[in-house]
């Protein structure tokens, strides 16, 4: 069946931006009834290729054939009429509309007197039911759903368009294991109906679980197309990053024990909490230590981090910083006290799209100095040079608007922004989300180096393995409260943390306490 005709065939595609060749004669074939994964590092050209296929970018050279016919895609509307639907990495829905309105947007059921909203919502309900989302009420506002479920709504939205090709650009980066499974069920059923699916993900396990075929890109060039059975993980990774994976493994193998300071903690909070976000929690952070926050989506990881930074105002709790009692109620105050926080929401709370890389880098330092004391251009250039090269930002052009960089490079710029403030405590919320293996390893390694230099790091990731690997100590959260605190080491693994989370709440409070005791000793 794989030898049936491809529904989409892209050949010799080249796209240039000023000064950069983003794609250089890249090819891609999508077959009906197959899940095809596009692999590559950040900046490899995955997003550009997808945007060429969805008509967002015009191609300079090459040809796109859809069902054998050469097509010129002049815009997203062309792509949609050709049966190509896309669900982007960051959900693009209208949160102020209802679920049903979002699903049916542009395909509302029309009656004699305009749109028949009842029929529209009913149709939305049916579409949702087909995807196993029957429990959702189409008349509910989308904003009431967690981000992960919004993603599934976005997929059902593309189903309404009767697509033949469905592009999923990192749909799983914000989903937990259950939701990923739910999504995969949906993908498989679509595949069996003959839809060609183009899937982008950085999670190797997921790629191997769902793909039939994959195409690897590197630096804007085509590296090869493989059937999933013909390539193993090690080969795949080395194709993607173009170098040996021994370097990556060395990070895993290294004994991450750092000298535990016995001195007083850098930061300590007693009973810090906020209604509806996280219950009163005690937390201590030391210099030179990486503390991980583990827990499922919605367990209160991000909420706790935001309270520490003052992004949300804590209702309760006492904070001691460097031995002195203090109050941190705004980000500006936190930065003044050398605490930095990198938000999980890179697009809305991280980068400022229309500012240049340089302006994004110096923003936090400048904000702390106040507007009346501008950072001299020489110092700006020094900061830019330092972090662009230290973090390997590509392209290394500081005057380029940051929105033109790939996600991983944006993340590196943001990391640079926070490091430029010379923080003593650095909070990283999902710093590696949506980032390829190479950039991920670079950032992880950098975090370790920072801790070795005496920085205190609070590390949050939905990938429990990553938390385990990075952290000296792990705080486990569940349902908006701290359920355990584990010393990193031989005994702790992703499995043991999952067990802690799973077993919490099985018994009553005393059993709960017993678990906590068991794991801390």
């Amino acid at each position, binding site marked *: 069946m794989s030898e049936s005709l491809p529904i989409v065939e892209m050949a010799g595609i080249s796209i*240039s*931006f*000023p000064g950069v060749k983003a794609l250089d004669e890249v090819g891609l074939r999508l077959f009906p009834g197959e899940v095809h994964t596009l692999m590559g590092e950040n900046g490899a050209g995955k997003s550009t290729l997808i945007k060429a296929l969805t008509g967002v970018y015009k191609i*300079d050279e090459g040809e796109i054939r859809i069902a054998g016919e050469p097509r010129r895609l002049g815009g997203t509307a062309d792509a949609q009429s050709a049966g190509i639907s896309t669900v982007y990495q960051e959900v693009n829905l209208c949160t102020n509309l209802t679920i049903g309105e979002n699903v049916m947007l542009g395909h509302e059921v029309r009656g004699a007197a305009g749109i028949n909203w009842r029929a529209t919502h009913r149709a939305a309900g049916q579409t949702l039911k087909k995807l196993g989302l029957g429990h959702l009420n189409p008349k509910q506002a989308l904003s009431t759903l967690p981000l992960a479920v919004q993603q599934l709504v976005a997929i059902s939205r593309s189903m309404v368009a009767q697509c033949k090709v469905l592009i999923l650009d990192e749909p799983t980066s914000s989903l937990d294991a259950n939701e990923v499974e739910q999504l995969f069920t949906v993908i498989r059923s679509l595949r069996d109906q003959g839809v060609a699916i183009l899937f982008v993900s950085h999670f190797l396990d997921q790629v191997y679980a769902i793909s039939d075929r994959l195409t690897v890109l590197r630096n804007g060039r085509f590296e090869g197309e493989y059937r999933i059975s013909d390539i193993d993980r090690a080969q795949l990774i080395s194709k993607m990053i173009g170098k040996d994976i021994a370097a990556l493994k060395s990070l895993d193998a290294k004994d991450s024990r750092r000298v535990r300071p016995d001195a007083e903690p850098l930061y300590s909070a007693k009973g810090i909490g906020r209604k509806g976000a996280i219950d009163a929690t005690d937390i201590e952070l030391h210099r030179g230590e990486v503390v991980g926050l583990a827990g499922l989506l919605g367990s209160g990881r991000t909420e706790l981090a935001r309270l520490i*930074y003052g*992004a949300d105002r804590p209702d309760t709790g006492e904070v001691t910083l460097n031995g002195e009692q203090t109050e941190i109620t*705004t*980000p*500006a105050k*936190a*930065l*003044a006290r050398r605490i930095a*926080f990198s*938000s999980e929401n890179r697009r*809305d*709370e*991280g*980068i*400022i*799209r*229309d*500012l240049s890389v340089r*302006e994004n880098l110096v*923003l*936090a330092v*400048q*904000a*702390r*100095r*106040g*507007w*009346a*004391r*501008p*950072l001299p251009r020489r110092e700006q250039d020094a900061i830019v040079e330092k972090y662009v090269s230290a973090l390997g930002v590509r392209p290394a052009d500081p*005057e380029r*608007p940051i929105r033109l960089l790939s996600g991983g490079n944006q993340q590196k710029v943001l990391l640079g*922004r926070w490091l430029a*403030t010379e923080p003593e405590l650095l909070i990283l919320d999902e710093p590696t989300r949506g980032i390829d293996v190479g950039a991920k390893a670079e950032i992880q390694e950098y975090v370790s180096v920072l801790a070795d230099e005496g920085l205190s790091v609070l590390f949050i990731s939905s990938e429990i393995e990553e938390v385990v690997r990075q952290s000296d100590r792990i705080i486990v959260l569940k349902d908006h409260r701290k359920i355990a605190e584990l010393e990193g080491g031989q005994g702790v693994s992703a499995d043991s943390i999952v067990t802690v989370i799973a077993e919490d709440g099985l018994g009553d409070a005393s059993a709960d306490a017993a678990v906590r005791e068991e794991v801390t000793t």
Partner: protein
Amino acid sequence: MSANAHGPSEALKGLVRRQYFWGIVAIALLLLVNLVKDPGYLAVSIGQSGNLAGNVIDILRAAAPIILIAVGMCLVVSTGGIDLSVGSVMAVAGAVSMEFLNGASDTVGSGLAAVGLVVIVSAALGAVNGVLVSVVGLQPFISTLVIMLAGRGLAKVITGGQNTTATNETFRWIANGYVLGLPVVFLLALLLALLMGLLVRRSALGLMLEAIGMDAKAARLAGVNRRALLFTVYILGGVLAGFAGVFATASVMTVDVSRTGYQLELDAILAVVIGGTSLAGGKFNITGAVVGAILIATLDKTVVFLGVSSSATPAFKAVVIVVLCLLQSERVRRMFRQRRAAGAARPAEREVVAA
């Protein structure tokens, strides 16, 4: 963004790409139209005391107050806000200064005192806007609308409903005097615009304002103090409007509480848009706002000069501005470019649109 300029042709290209380029073109066209009607229109004569006089000088003089409020508006707009109260603040400034001078002696001291008083009062009005927007968290549109309505009432209360008149040579000189042959008002307006430009670009104020306007959430997390910045910006807008009020009243030494600054907020907003600053906030361009203000003054004078009946004046203004906005629109320009490219057998002159 622009490649390094090589020679004058590149510099010209750089100018053409500026948003306010079409504003300059429009000014030139309007002057040309006037020139056609009266070949002597552009003539500038030198009066007995070496002062320049002529239609162009009149335009510059009329542009002065608009320049000031446009610059203030430009900063407010860059934060994603809007300031509808500038016209009313002008009226209040006029009322305060006239009432003060009416009872004061005709000395340099009292003239300067009147200006000082205006600065204080208009800063206070700006501060009220600032508090409503930044502390209370009202929408800028509503907050400044309140001050727009209240301000005119306040002006009437100050003068007791009268159109107060006063005499003070120093104060009058601000509007009617000359330095180096040019009207003081225009030079002062240009100087203040220049100072504001230096203030925002030499300090980090401009970057901070743009950051707020582009992405308030991200700016907050980066430690940008939005509240203080908004407060500052509305006060600046108020003070600039106060100066504009002084300019508008000093020329006739009378405040017309219901006409001074009337609907000038709209002119200011137009000037800002013509100058290439998006009302959505973000990147702003003070030079552009100044160009826009001069265009509006030129337009006003042209309408009078051509004898367009006063009832048709708004329509005439609207047509010019709509055409201008169309020319500036990225979409319309791309359409033209594509047409040209298609005509030239498609040699794919690929200019990636760097918005």
